[in-house]
């Protein structure tokens, strides 16, 4: 099938997965408010056997969107006039979002029930947010980026503050909202300036204008700077990271997991497309910004993570650090780095989700037992769970044998291609620092006895969760040992974006 976006109907085809998700979200929302399947109102009779229908339905929606996403591989677009793109880069990113959404849903089943959340709205918001992320990935127009960003953000604001009984949830929601909206202002202002400089919001056209020097330089540079701020806020890099620890800590854990993965991934994908397609001609101008952000982020996040004893908060800093690693790929700005970014996001989705899933379990499907002390003796009481956690931690730390290592190598390869040696060294040094806090969790798990032996019992691990954990850990090991196919896939996905250049050596100052 070929799309040229002359007919509006083409957009329906091009955005089929997004449409499916939105529609599905509305259905779930309606089913949720109909009340029959709302576990929160089901009373204590059903307390022992929660109804997971809505959850499974959501998964079905995600699967449907995934099918559509797969179908899109058979679709080619003609020209670059459309507001959305149909290329493999986008589709690969979609896989990540859908995976993140699916995992988030899987780990929410019991959580939603135990925390008496409004299941319909909750799942619907996840679907909407996912649709938003996919819009961002598929945007060829800055306006679509903005719309996707807002669809995603607004859904996530709501999700963050979703647990109305929890003060921290509300506080996190407010902080996220105010700062998010604040950063949106910067993003929009940048958008306006770029529009002013180039006269267009089509990324391809902007790229053309920047390359030929047709753009008004001062406006463009400020525009780029403001857009960078907007993206940087969403991906959570220093110094735009301040919200991250608080919000990650306060939000319901499955939401945190989703946020840490999907939101970040979406922002990165859009960040890459806008900067590498649109602003590549101005690489020399934004390269130092990205370079410094990457370096500072890696250093600050990893060092601050050392001081964290709340596991959620530690993972929040860890996710900032990972954003820093990904910024290295942006600074490298070549095809390998871009492929590395995709690959890393995929891996990161699995490992981070996995780690948060364990947090959910140890938190007894709630927001308790978040301190590192609570993990002491886990290896003795729940060995399998501890093994999974260890795998996720090792992957996060980037250890050989796990996919995390391959991801990091991919990023480093990209950096090496652009000869970013100092950034590479910073990256590996900070990896050493990160070992400390990941291993600290591992040593509490394995090498300490439980602080309170009475709490040392077997933890409840719902079946969907088991599936998610097992599959996640297996995938991490599998991708750690046989990464080639997936790596090639990421590389091919990037190759479709013709603007991602082979090498930027000449552009590097």
């Amino acid at each position: 099938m070929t799309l040229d976006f002359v007919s509006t109907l083409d957009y329906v085809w091009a955005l089929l997965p997004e449409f499916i998700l939105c529609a599905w979200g509305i259905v779930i929302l309606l089913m949720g408010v109909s009340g029959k399947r709302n576990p929160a109102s089901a009373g204590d009779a059903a307390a022992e056997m929660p109804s997971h229908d809505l959850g499974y339905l959501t998964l079905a929606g995600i699967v449907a969107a995934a099918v559509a996403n797969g179908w899109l591989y058979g679709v080619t677009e003609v020209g670059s006039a459309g507001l959305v793109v149909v290329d493999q880069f986008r589709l690969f990113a979609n896989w990540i979002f859908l995976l993140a959404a699916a995992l988030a849903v899987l780990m929410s089943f019991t959580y939603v029930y135990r925390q008496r959340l409004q299941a319909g709205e909750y799942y619907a918001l996840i679907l909407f947010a996912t649709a938003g992320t996919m819009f961002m990935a598929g945007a060829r127009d800055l306006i679509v980026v903005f719309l996707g960003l807002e669809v995603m953000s607004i859904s996530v604001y709501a999700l963050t503050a979703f647990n109305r009984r929890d003060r921290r949830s509300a506080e996190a929601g407010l902080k996220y909202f105010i700062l998010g909206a604040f950063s949106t202002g910067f993003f929009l202002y940048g958008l306006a300036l770029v529009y002013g400089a180039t006269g267009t919001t089509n990324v391809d056209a902007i790229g053309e204008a920047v390359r030929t020097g047709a753009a008004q330089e001062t406006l463009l540079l400020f525009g780029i700077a403001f857009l960078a701020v907007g993206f940087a806020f969403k991906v959570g890099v220093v110094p735009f990271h301040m919200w991250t620890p608080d919000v990650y800590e306060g939000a319901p854990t499955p939401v945190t997991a989703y946020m840490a993965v999907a939101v970040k991934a979406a922002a990165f994908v859009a960040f890459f497309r806008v900067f590498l397609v649109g602003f590549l001609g101005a690489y020399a101008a934004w390269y130092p910004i990205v370079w410094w952000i990457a370096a500072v982020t890696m250093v600050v996040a990893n060092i601050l993570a050392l001081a964290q004893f709340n596991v959620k908060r530690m993972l929040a800093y860890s996710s900032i650090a990972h954003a820093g690693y990904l910024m290295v790929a942006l600074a490298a700005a070549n095809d390998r780095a871009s492929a590395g970014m995709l690959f890393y996001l995929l891996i990161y989705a699995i490992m981070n989700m996995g780690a948060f899933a364990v947090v959910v379990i140890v938190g007894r499907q709630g927001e308790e037992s978040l301190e590192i002390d609570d993990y002491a003796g886990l290896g003795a009481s729940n060995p399998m769970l501890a093994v999974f956690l260890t795998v996720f931690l090792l992957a996060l730390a980037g250890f050989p044998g796990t996919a995390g290592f391959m991801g990091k190598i991919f990023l480093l390869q990209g950096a090496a291609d652009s000869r970013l040696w100092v950034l590479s060294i910073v990256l590996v040094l900070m990896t050493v620092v990160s070992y400390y806090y990941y291993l600290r969790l591992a040593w509490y798990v394995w090498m300490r006895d439980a602080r309170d032996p009475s709490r040392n019992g077997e933890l409840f691990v719902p079946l969907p969760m088991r599936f998610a954990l097992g599959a996640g850990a297996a995938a991490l090991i599998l991708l750690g040992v046989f990464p080639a196919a997936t790596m090639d896939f990421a590389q091919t996905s990037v190759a479709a974006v013709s603007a991602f250049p082979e090498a930027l050596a000449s552009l590097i100052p």
Partner: protein
Amino acid sequence: MASAVVLLAQGGQEVVEGSAAHASFDPLLPGLIVLLPLIGFLVNGALALSHAKKSADAVRVGEEYDPHTGSGGGRDLTHTLPSWIGPGVMLGAFILVLANFARMFGADLHDPVVLEYWTWMATGTLEVSVSLQLDPLSMIMMLVITGVGFLIHVFSVGYMKDDVGYPRYFAYLNLFVFFMLVLVMGANLPLLFVGWEGVGLCSYLLIGFWFGDREKSDAGKKAFIVNRIGDFGFLIAMFLLFTVFGTLDFVAINAGAEASLVYGGAMVTAITLFMLLGASGKSAQIPLYVWLPDAMAGPTPVSALIHAATMVTAGVYLVARTSVLFALSPVGSVTVAGIGAATALFAATIALVQTDIKKVLAYSTVSQLGYMFLGVGVGAYAAGVFHLMTHAFFKALLFLGSGAVIHSMHHAYHATHSHEDAQDMRNMGGLRRYMPWTALFMWIATLAIAGIWPFAGFFSKDEIIWYAGASAVGPFAPLYTVFWVVALAAAMLTAFYMTRMMVMTFHGANRTGEEERGHLHEAPLTMTVPLSILAFLSIFGGWINVPEKIRTSFLGGGGALPMSEWLHDWLDPVVHAAVVVREEALVAAGALAGQEHHYGFLEHAPVGGGELTWALISTLLAAAVVAGTFILGARWAIRPAKESAPLAGVKKLLYDKWYVDEFYDAVVVKPILGTSRFLWRWIDRGIDFVVGGVGGVTKGVGWVGSLVQTGSVNVYAFVLTAGVLVILWFTRF
């Protein structure tokens, strides 16, 4: 391993292509000579282990294991077998050595026979094989080792049979002989080094044989560590030799030495000096002699075998073996001689006042080793080896005799449950009445060591002294004169302290104690028979190498006695090159007239007088000292140890061995220990502190840094805006 054993027994591959005359010396199973003691060690070792297990079981239930009753009544097999195996393998080895020795007669001995068994280390540049070398020098050493060794093994059967560790003792002893044979038969330096360190190990194990005693195990440790200092020198010497020759085989080194090394050059001097360090460690010379007196902590037969007859002479052997190198280095040679002379005198002074019978003998050994060093240092290589051999006879005899005395004393004290020191001569006296044979044999040895004609020691010692004096030509002439005087003086001291020992032990009134006296008795046959053989050798052993002048004189009995210069000729192939180098150098330096014949400089003492004159003078002097001491000694008022007053003045200084041990302790041992502690406490932990500090600071920074995260939205927004401003500022440029 098994194949190697077969190989060893069969004899390896001959690598040095001998001349036709070689056919006449077809070595007979040289590998088996080495192998036999090793087999003895393995069997005895296995017995020892099995025995030790039973003994340990007894220890656990708080008893002593009695080897005589054993487990099933009657004597334990682990206790009877070693009595046969230990001396048995020695006898076998000795017979084989004799057989080889017999075959060697009449053969052309100019080139050594080298038999290669297997390649030990072939790295690509260094080639070291496990090869045995048979030549006159190694043959003499083998004879001494297996012969004297056999006698001492036999003696040990009597001496040690009541000891709990009896099988272990024989295992060690056999192992020692194995390593000693490797030492003297090894055809290259690394293999010699195997034996070198191996005998050190056995010495360590045997000194600390009664390891339950702190002092004894300390002594063993001290011996090993001090020896290692020497080994360090040996290693460096080997390295230097390798850099010069590219090989470490004796044959190649000796053959190439003159071509590769400059006479008196820095290289050869360095080689010889490092080698001397090694030799002085093993042979207990200044400055490394300190371990030997302590080594007397071991069983007395061990002192006889290892610390008198064989191991400690390894240094002399080494110098003789590499004599060409020493000949090429006048500085090296004079240092060897100087150290030898100094040690001879120094040790003799200490021996003057010692009261422990074994200590006297120990210092006497150090002193006699000094003579040997003096000998090889002045170029009298054959004389050095000669003294080595005669010394092996009479010093072994002395030690074994003292062993018999101690054995007897020990029994006496043991029977009466007294805790007196069985080795203290002040507790002895008049023992000749109880052990007449021992007294007789020891007197023979004493006369031999004192250098009284015609006992063995006279010939060997006199030759060395004479050489020292006659060598006073060439660049270091005055020094050699001093050595000569020192050697003469030390000989007089020797005569004195040995006689003193005999007097205190065997003569005068008995001081052992009323009750104990009844338990004193002569040693059993297993002990006295070896003594008698050694006594025989101590008398006649010297006759194999009598200088021509003396032989033809009236002192030689007008040629009626079967004296000869045999050893001299026998060793000539080994040391010939060295002697030639030495003489040529002296000729070149104008110190020697060119036409003078081989050994021609041996004509005059520095102060005049010929060889015969001085031989006469020295033996008469020695005899006078012996006689005088014996007569005066009868009047000495000696009290038993517990009643003796502490010494004072010079006597105390000598008794406390010039405080050399204390000096070493303060100057070497303590500083090293202190530095070690300092390094550990400060440097090592300092590094740790720095590394830990980096980690700690990082964590601290993290903690402080996270305080910025105040929870206030305004602050967050402010940081965000600040970031924006920084970026905008960046963008401006």
